[in-house]
């Protein structure tokens, strides 16, 4: 019978990766231009100037390669005050998010405006680029915008886009912060693991025992709440010999990665086999878990010494 449900588990899950991007001709010219304190846009066939530039006309889908240089001064077209900047934002002190139409452009660029407070910002405000001291060929080469009183002078002049040592690629680090909650069934399973017991759940409709349990039968969708202990012994149904080191895994190769059908379970789970030379592992071999102090899951499985299970005993679990 199920005992009282323990508190469901929860833990942070941070997903972070430095994605790279090939820029293509237009973004390459744009970002290299910023490095050289030059703002480039593109001119569409109907004469509009788009800053930031795009490779393909948003209206006609035509390829655009006609680069133009605009001014570093412009006009705020709309804005929003950001009272509490977050990690990674352009300024550490409160600032305004602004859309700025640079002189010579027909579209607006999103960036930050350094201003003492919201009272100092209004639509129509004249601004200019404050260049970063160290520029690498990135949108952050514009440190931010700052108020700057100057007459609007719409002017866009043709530019070849050619620079020495152009930037052709960038790295864009993505980071996502999640809170992961495995749910009641997984929590019951994990709590039992702490006592070195492996709990499956039986489907009341099709009577199959699933491990790890998910709280519902993956075949028929029926909720499962009847826990049943499986294993600890089981049968190797199939396996492979891993001969190359996987990134981030501290296991010496070669080693055996196996599917193990624990006694009483109706599907196999995965584990490493040790305690036997890798080339003597076989389908049908009987194994048991080996636990290590402080680890949540079995470290590996080792042979029990029992005779191998006949193929017919596990072929449906392959």
């Amino acid at each position, binding site marked *: 019978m199920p005992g009282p449900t323990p508190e469901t*588990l929860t*833990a*942070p*899950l*941070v*997903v972070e*990766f430095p*994605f*790279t*991007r*090939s*820029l*293509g001709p237009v*973004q390459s010219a744009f970002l290299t231009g910023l490095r050289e304190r030059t703002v480039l846009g593109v001119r569409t066939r109907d004469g509009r100037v788009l800053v930031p530039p*795009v*490779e*393909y006309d*948003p*209206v*006609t*889908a035509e*390829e655009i390669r006609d680069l133009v240089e605009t001014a570093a001064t412009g006009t705020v077209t709309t804005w929003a005050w950001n009272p509490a900047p977050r990690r990674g934002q352009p300024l550490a002190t409160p600032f305004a998010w602004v859309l700025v139409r640079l002189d010579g452009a027909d579209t607006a660029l999103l960036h930050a405006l350094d201003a003492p407070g919201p009272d100092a910002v209004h639509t129509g405000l004249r601004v200019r680029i404050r260049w970063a001291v160290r520029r690498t060929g990135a949108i952050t080469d514009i440190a931010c915008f700052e108020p700057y009183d100057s007459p609007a002078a719409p002017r866009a002049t043709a530019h070849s886009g050619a620079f020495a040592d152009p930037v*052709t*690629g960038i790295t*864009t680090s*993505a980071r996502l912060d999640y809170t*992961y909650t*495995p749910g009641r069934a*997984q929590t019951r399973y*994990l709590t039992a693991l702490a006592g070195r017991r492996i709990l499956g759940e039986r489907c009341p409709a099709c009577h*199959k025992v*699933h491990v790890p349990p998910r709280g519902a*039968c*993956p*075949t028929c969708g029926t909720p499962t709440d009847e826990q049943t202990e499986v294993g600890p012994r089981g049968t190797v149904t*199939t*396996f*492979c*010999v*891993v*001969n*190359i080191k*996987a*990134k981030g*895994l501290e296991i010496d190769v070669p080693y055996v*990665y*196996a*599917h193990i059908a624990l006694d009483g379970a*109706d*599907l196999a789970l*995965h*584990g*490493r086999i040790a305690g036997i030379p890798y080339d003597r592992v076989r*389908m049908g071999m009987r194994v048991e878990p080996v636990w290590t102090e402080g680890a*949540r*899951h079995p470290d590996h499985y080792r042979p029990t010494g029992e005779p191998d299970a006949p*193929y017919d005993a596990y*072929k*449906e679990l*392959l």
Partner: protein
Amino acid sequence: MSKEPVAVVGIGQTRHAAARHDVSIAGLVREAAVRALDDAALTWADVEAVVIGKAPDFFEGVMMPELYLADALGATGKPMLRVHTAGSVGGSTALVAASLVASRVHRTVLTLAFEKQSESNAMWGLSLPVPFQQPLLAGAGGFFAPHVRAYMRRSGAPEGIGTLVAYKDRRNALRNPYAHLHEHGITLERVRSSPMLWDPIRYSETCPSSDGACAMVLTGTAGAARAPHPPAWVHGGAMRSEPTLFAGKDFVSPRAGRDCAAEVYRQAGVTDPRREIDVVEMYVPFSWYEPMWLENLGFAAEGEGWKLTESGATEADGDLPVNPSGGVLSANPIGASGMLRFAEAALQVRGAAGERQVPGARRALGHAYGGGAQFFSMWLVADTRPTT
């Protein structure tokens, strides 16, 4: 009311490579899309809707391709949909596009799938550090290798079948100018002696990591009549899915794959696929999956698929050529790989497959699968308009 017959009138693909540093993602999809439009002699204005597919978001960190790529694909002012079914996505994306034509919602639809593996890391995308869970202990091929061993045990297939497939597909790729791998001077011995990575899978038996895109223009009977080149006609198309893990899951021959093929054959009136289908483009990420899928798709009885491979029937000049393009083993831009299978099947029945053309191909199957053998999508195309 009957469905509108669906014709493939435009096909375009990129030159696939380990890294296409010369183009942005927008430039990559554009290359395929422009080629498909040119093939159909159509312009952006002729396209009524765009259906796009790609691999899971983490693979190259583009969460909303339908937003980011709308300009490059001329989607302004038009419906643009994104489809998402792991490695099978290229196939299911094409089928969603086909359904828009078949249902007469749209007359002409552009469908496209892409992947830029060089700007990401698919293995990282597949192994997020989910709390409390035991990490996969084996790396990319380690997920598949135990299933291959299970197939060998179940069928009694001899060890060398996987190398035969890899040797065939890499030679086929030499006739496909778009393929990523062109291994001139490849020999069976070289495949056979390549390192054993995840025993029983050798290095040469694994797919490469590629950048690439594929696009197709789908239309109805009126559009087909205006097309400059013969179309491929869709005679059947289906998708099936099942959980990655459940009691009774058959990784060697998943039920979802069998059911999906059966539905496609039913729609197309095919009762003996081995005899009635002239060429197959199937999703074979590791060479052993050719004999496995031959059985799953009904081309061979259970346990007999490897005999078909061993007999040479699946060679380019055999009586059931499989992957004359070189297949996934020769180019694997994951998000696009499924659509490439569909497109290569269509090229064959259009007689437009160039040096890799199977002479007289009139009926071809395109097959895609993905996830942990979780998603399946297939279509059957032919050189004549369906009668029903």
